[in-house]
């Protein structure tokens, strides 16, 4: 198992490098000029100097190598410096945003908490809703509950999140006035009142994303439970005189969770992608919104870093899903 994990980790490196190359080459084609917003009175030779200062004069492979160096060596050094007060980085050049002229990772660090709160909460809530629904739907197959669950989950992943979000805003913040429609990032949770305010502004985006996630996961849970409920070991367990609760919640559930857990792990990076749209609807200024503004403003280093971070998430969680599968299911042997 350990050798397998190490082998997979090592194999992930060329994959990531290749993905980085694809994204880099795609961005290299970008028609926009980062100096387009500069005054026209700047003489051409100064403009050329400015381009060189931004690192645009070099050949693409040097810029690519520099990006990788900064991403994997320099930025972690700065991170360690910030945490332990050391001086590893020694003033090395960081990845600088074209738009704000500040280090890309500083901006990302500012935006990260909002995204993590909303996305993380929505995923947890989604999973917590999905599992019981899937279990009950499978145990009482074709009952009213099952049919209702099927209908709701069908609606949940058919209706796009931007429409669900807009309808929720219309009902709950325009008509009823229960929740604010715009996410306030300045809010600091210091006491009970600000905590309630935070919960209220998180309610709608979390609900939208949670509904979408829950509708997919509950389908998997139901299918997996149904597969296991018909197995021979279930009959054996019942024949031994075990109570229904033990049979379903111990024997069947544990076995059904194996594929579902990998599905949950595989879904994490997708949730980050899906949050791009939800953040736009509720004006949460998280990573998704940062990506959109960076794309619109031709901010190549920012787009490159963010997209590459999404890619790392995908590769990482694919790896986690595969390893989890091997850990949880003793029938799977990778060695």
């Amino acid at each position, binding site marked *: 198992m350990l050798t397998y994990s190490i082998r997979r980790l090592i194999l992930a490196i060329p*994959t990531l490098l*290749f*993905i980085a190359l*694809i*994204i880099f080459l*795609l*961005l290299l*084609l*970008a*028609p926009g000029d980062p100096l387009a917003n500069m005054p026209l009175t700047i003489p051409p030779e100064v403009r050329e100097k400015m381009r060189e200062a931004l690192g645009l004069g070099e050949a693409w492979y040097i810029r690519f190598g520099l990006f990788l160096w900064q991403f994997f060596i320099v930025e972690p050094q700065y991170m360690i410096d910030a945490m332990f007060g050391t001086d590893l980085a020694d003033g090395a050049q960081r990845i600088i945003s074209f738009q704000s002229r500040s280090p890309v990772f500083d901006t990302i660090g500012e935006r990260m908490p909002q995204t993590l709160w909303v996305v993380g909460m929505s995923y947890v809530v989604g999973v917590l809703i999905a599992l019981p629904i899937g279990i009950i739907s499978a145990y009482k197959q074709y009952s009213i509950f099952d049919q209702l669950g099927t209908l709701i989950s*069908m*609606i949940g*992943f*058919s*209706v*796009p999140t*931007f*429409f669900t979000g*807009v*309808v929720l*805003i*219309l009902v709950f913040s*325009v008509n009823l006035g229960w929740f604010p429609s715009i996410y306030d990032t300045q809010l600091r949770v210091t006491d009970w009142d600000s905590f309630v305010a935070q919960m209220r502004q998180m309610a709608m985006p979390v609900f939208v994303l949670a509904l979408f996630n829950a509708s997919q996961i509950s389908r998997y849970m139901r299918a997996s439970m149904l597969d296991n409920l018909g197995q021979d070991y279930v009959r054996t367990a019942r024949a031994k005189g075990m109570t229904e609760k033990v049979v379903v919640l111990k024997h069947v559930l544990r076995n059904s969770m194996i594929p579902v857990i990998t599905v949950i792990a595989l879904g994490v*990076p997708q949730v980050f*992608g*899906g949050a*791009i*749209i939800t953040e*736009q609807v509720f004006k949460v200024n998280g990573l998704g919104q940062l*990506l*959109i503004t960076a*794309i*619109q403003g031709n901010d190549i280093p920012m*787009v490159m870093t*963010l*997209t590459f971070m*999404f*890619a790392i*998430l*995908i*590769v990482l969680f*694919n790896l986690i899903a595969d390893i989890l599968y091997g850990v949880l299911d003793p029938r799977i042997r990778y060695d």
Partner: protein
Amino acid sequence: MTDPMTNMPAMSPPRAVPIEKARSQWRDIWAQFRTHKGAVWGLGFLIFITLFVAIGPLIWDVDATKTDIRNKNMRPFYTLLWDSEARFTWVKPLGSDNLGRDVLANLMQGGRTSMAVGWTAMILAVVVGTLIGVLAGFFKRIDGALMRFTDLVLSLPLLPLLLVMMLLFRDTLRATFGPETGIFILIVVAIGLTSWMQTARIVRGDVLALKEREFVLAARSIGTPSRRMISRHILPNVLSPIMVSATLGLANAIITESALSFLGLGFPSDFPTWGKTLFDSIQYMEEYPERVIWPGLCISFTVLAVNYIGDGLRDALDPRIRGQ
């Protein structure tokens, strides 16, 4: 060892079985499909919405992009039920937007674009996916390379890349093909090229299983060349997974297109699609919620219908379920 036959009841003389009329496989599939209530409703709605966007503009002959400032901000006719003061005119039955453009005509015109993008992108994705899946499953030499490539594309962050692609190639294509055709080609190709992977994987798996079957061996032993083997024996047998993933692809393409338009990276603003209309109306949604609701409902119901059709097709095409 006793002969198993002796234990069986005495064989009755063969009864005259009335010869049933030979039923084609497609008729069986249709019969099974009809038992799925959601799928039938979905098919009905899909036909309705297709007719609505295809024939609708011929009947409701109003230019969707024509501004009519005198009749701007009209409410739809049903607002009269609870608000007799509402600004309303029969010229604009579903109301008009802030520039006086007709909402009903907008829905029809926008639907045309959304559906056209959805179908074309889906066909592109299915063709690419089937091609790669069949090639990988049938020819062992290129299987490894093609599947590694598929895995690689699967681990790309697709939505961010889609957004980047939209931004990068927008101006070039617009200059080459004109604003509308250029963006159409860009969106279709971008969505198609980012959603073929699931089809390829499923098709490859089925082709691998089919290759071990006797009829393929028989066909090979009489010297069928690979090209005809694929077209005569392999492709017809992987049709059902392809059809199911085609419905999923259609739903996915419609959602992706409207999401792109919603993020402001889709069609230009004077060119309505459902997602674009929804996006443009959000700033007025407090006073005029109907402008958001109608396009949103169109997208949602179309996708829901397509997903239900996919569900029904999966059941109908599965021979283990069919006929029970």
